């Protein structure tokens, strides 16, 4: 029987997540904290909500548990998992970006950045602006005027 060391993560909502160390060190930020000896009790992650943290842990777990081989099946399985993972509303994606950027998980960051880029690609400036507006609950009038300015200048 083998014991795997576990790490406690405490988040913005005060909730505690217990994860295996091998999963917890996927985020480089946490890996560095552990190396610096900051993980004796629990690691504080005050700027990440439960919803987002559990999603991140789910992703790290999946990638740690999938064997790192060149097997087509394993790769296809991961790809399918990633594809479903990013099928979230834009608000969740926004929060994920900030959390994953803070945690520094390169693979997941690339995935989310690419997802957003794919949503933007091929849209006109008006469509892109609309996409931002629908999800920006606070819309800046200044931004609107500036867009009109650029449109009129045809830059």
């Amino acid at each position: 029987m083998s014991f795997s060391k576990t790490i406690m993560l405490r988040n913005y909502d005060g909730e505690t997540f217990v994860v295996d160390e091998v999963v917890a060190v996927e985020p480089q930020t946490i890996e560095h904290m552990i190396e610096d000896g900051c993980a004796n009790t629990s690691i504080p992650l005050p700027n990440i909500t439960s919803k987002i943290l559990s999603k991140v842990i789910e992703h790290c777990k999946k990638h740690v548990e999938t064997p790192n081989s060149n097997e087509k099946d394993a790769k296809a399985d991961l790809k399918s998992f990633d594809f479903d993972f990013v099928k979230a509303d834009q608000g969740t994606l926004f929060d994920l970006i900030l959390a994953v950027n803070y945690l520094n998980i390169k693979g997941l960051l690339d995935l989310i950045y690419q997802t957003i880029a794919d949503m933007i690609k091929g849209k006109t400036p008006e469509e892109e602006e609309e996409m931002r507006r629908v999800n920006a609950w606070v819309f800046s009038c200044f931004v609107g005027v500036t867009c009109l300015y650029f449109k009129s200048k045809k830059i």
Partner: protein
Amino acid sequence: MDQQKAINLKVKRPQRNWLDLPSEITANILHRIGVFDIFQNAQKVCTMWREICKDPAMWRVIYVDASFDPNANRAFEEMCKRAVDRSQGQLVDITIVRFRNEEILEYIANRSRQLKRLTIACCDDFSYRIWTKCLVKFPLLEELSLYATNISAEGIETAGRYCSKLKTLKVNQENYRFWDDCIATTIGENLHELRHLELIGNPMMNEGLKMILDGCRHLELLDLRRCLFIRLGGVLGKRCLQEIKCVKLPNDFLEGCPFIYEKDGFYDESDGHYDECYDEYYDEYYDESEVGYDEESEGGSDEEFIYEKDGFYDKSDGYYDESEGGSDE
């Protein structure tokens, strides 16, 4: 009514604004949508995005594929030039695909002394002189990747003389019809510091390969896929496998070779194999007796390395039989 709804929404939901993303995150995302979309769309959305799109940091890595619209080659050229201008000399990595006018290479060379990676694909209208003219201007170049271009041996020699930091060289092409050791010999004579060398589809014979093994003593990877005129039975093959960590053999799968082997009639992406008819074509027309052997070959088993069939090759005109057909165009 709508206004009331909007106010209610504002009250209930948390505040999130995509403009609140740190600019380096926005820059990373916008960079991925590609040069065309940045110029046509993203930079017109708002002031902040425009500022990000003008930041030289966004333009350190550039990828422009003119095959998006072959009739708009000129427009892509202009776009590429503007992208290079925005880098303000900080360009480190550029890829250009299917450009017809070699002037673009000169434009890049005159403005990008810090360039470390240069990839050129399917630009076979470039003259021979352009390579020597431009490669002298990339003293910090570490990787030169060429796919289906017509670089000359002199161009390779220039790279050897002026690009002292060059560690990766790829000169990948579709197969030639007759052998030629020039490129291989020039590499062996001039590029002693190479670690990674790809020569997919190269027409070298065993003599050329020997020059590479003798001259590039630090090679860690050597890609010889689709090198149809070498025979690796015997000492030469053993040398390859002993001296180099990773060798890709002429018959190996063609996965991971972009631009040239993905779109022809033979290549089946699902399994990385060429269609059967490709091997038939080769089998029928390749005559071993006409091609240089490895003199030291003991006649050991070549089956694992290369084709060993008879066929006919007309030495008088250097061409395979005209009736080769086989292409699934």
